[in-house]
């Protein structure tokens, strides 16, 4: 168990090292990054929209029903919903979902290329396969995930507003006053920095498991599962560490 942990950790860092070799052609790297942004980032807007809308609504309704006290002003609901969405939901939860969607996509794609010898074919041509396959995905994720997270914040807060107004639990004016009340911009920065860490975690861990697949289709599936489990755990650990260091 410990032996295998340190084996993977060591190999993971060697793997990361290969990402930083000079690319064969900068223009090709640029093109590959655009393709990956489209595939990994743009394609995730749908799921992020749906989840943010619903969770924003649920957070608001729950906060409102729990703050059912005449001495607590109504706008507190908006403030509380904003804090939950900015601090935790839009960064951590959205990234956990991306670990499932994007992570398994990356690891099965690279894993399939491994077992069908496409990675060997790259190596034989003298192409740095990690640089060609993995680096564009990591860069694309570092660009897309913060944008997705910022977008999720807006949609989440919007969802809360709709739910509060529609159910009458928190009228529009109160909610809008609430989300402006005592707003700390650095919470947004904190969240976006977290999301950068998570983007790197998801893309490199997924690529790592895919890259070292041995065997057949079964192992590719297993690598996807491992990706989701390991990257979720690492995200939760980093979340705790960053929160502890930053907000204390």
């Amino acid at each position: 168990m410990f032996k295998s942990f340190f084996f993977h950790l060591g190999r993971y860092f060697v793997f990361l090292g290969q990402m930083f070799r000079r690319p064969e052609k900068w223009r090709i790297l640029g093109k590959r990054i655009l393709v990956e942004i489209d595939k990994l980032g743009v394609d995730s807007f749908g799921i992020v929209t749906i989840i943010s809308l619903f969770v924003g609504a649920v957070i608001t309704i729950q906060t409102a029903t729990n703050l059912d006290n005449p001495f607590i002003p109504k706008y507190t609901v908006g403030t509380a919903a904003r804090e939950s969405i900015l601090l935790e939901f839009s960064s951590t939860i959205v990234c956990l979902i991306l670990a499932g969607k994007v992570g398994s996509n990356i690891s099965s794609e690279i894993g399939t290329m491994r077992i069908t010898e496409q990675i060997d074919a790259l190596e034989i041509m003298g192409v740095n396969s990690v640089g060609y396959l993995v680096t564009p995905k990591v860069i694309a994720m570092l660009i897309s995930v913060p944008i997705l997270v910022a977008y999720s914040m807006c949609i989440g807060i919007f969802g809360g507003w709709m739910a509060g107004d529609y159910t009458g639990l928190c009228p529009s004016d109160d909610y809008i006053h609430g989300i402006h009340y005592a707003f700390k911009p650095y919470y947004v920065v904190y969240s976006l920095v977290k999301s950068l860490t998570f983007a790197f975690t998801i893309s490199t861990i997924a690529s790592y498991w895919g890259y070292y697949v041995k065997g057949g289709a079964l192992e590719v599936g297993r690598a996807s599962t491992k990706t989701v489990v390991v990257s979720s755990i690492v995200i939760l650990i980093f979340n705790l560490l960053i929160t502890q260091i930053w907000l204390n």
Partner: protein
Amino acid sequence: MIEAIDIHKTFGDREVMHGISATFETGKTNLIIGKSGSGKTVLLKSLVGLYQPESGDILFDGRSTINLSHKRSLALRREIGMLFQGSALFDSLTVEENVRFPLDMFTNMTLQERKNQAIACLERVNMPKESYKLFPSEISGGMQKRAAIARAIALRPKYLFCDEPNSGLDPLTSSVIDNLIHEITKEYNITTIINTHDMNSVINIGEHIIFINSGNKEWDGTRETILQADIPAMKEFLEPYRLRFE
């Protein structure tokens, strides 16, 4: 000419290659034969450098390829073309883009020049024009093999490695692919090494043959002398074909 000198290769604590020495000549189709699991793929991948042998030396026209610096091994790899057992075409690229890929990566030709050269390679392997814009999953296995050959020769390699070029093909298509590899070898004067367990290939294009059995080289010769071989494992391997040979 490629020389392998006393190659040993171990996986974990199991040695699968017990000191193989062989010479593969330029301008000839060199065949590595042996039954499934005998170590043909491991030998081929050791020769091209995808596996690092524990001991021994490999010389490409006199240049040792063991322990090369990263830069020199990249330079050497541009002289190598390889055809994989499952074709290994990139499935996100079309047939034409696959063939153009090594040109895109390593040459400074203009797009039009690269396109022209890719098409010339595709024409050389007799790919039908309609297939250029298709993806690998949309063409047959035989067509995939042709496209993979076209990609392997795009940079005019000096060395060509083929791992079971006939696997999964019908006998007719197999011999077409065999002949194609043979012609290209002659035309560009390439050192070609082919892994196979197909006796038809041996009869057809076996100019120089080595026989591998459980990680040992047991025999070395030509198709003319193969029937005189007096090695038990090889007799067993040849038995089903003996009648047709004679």
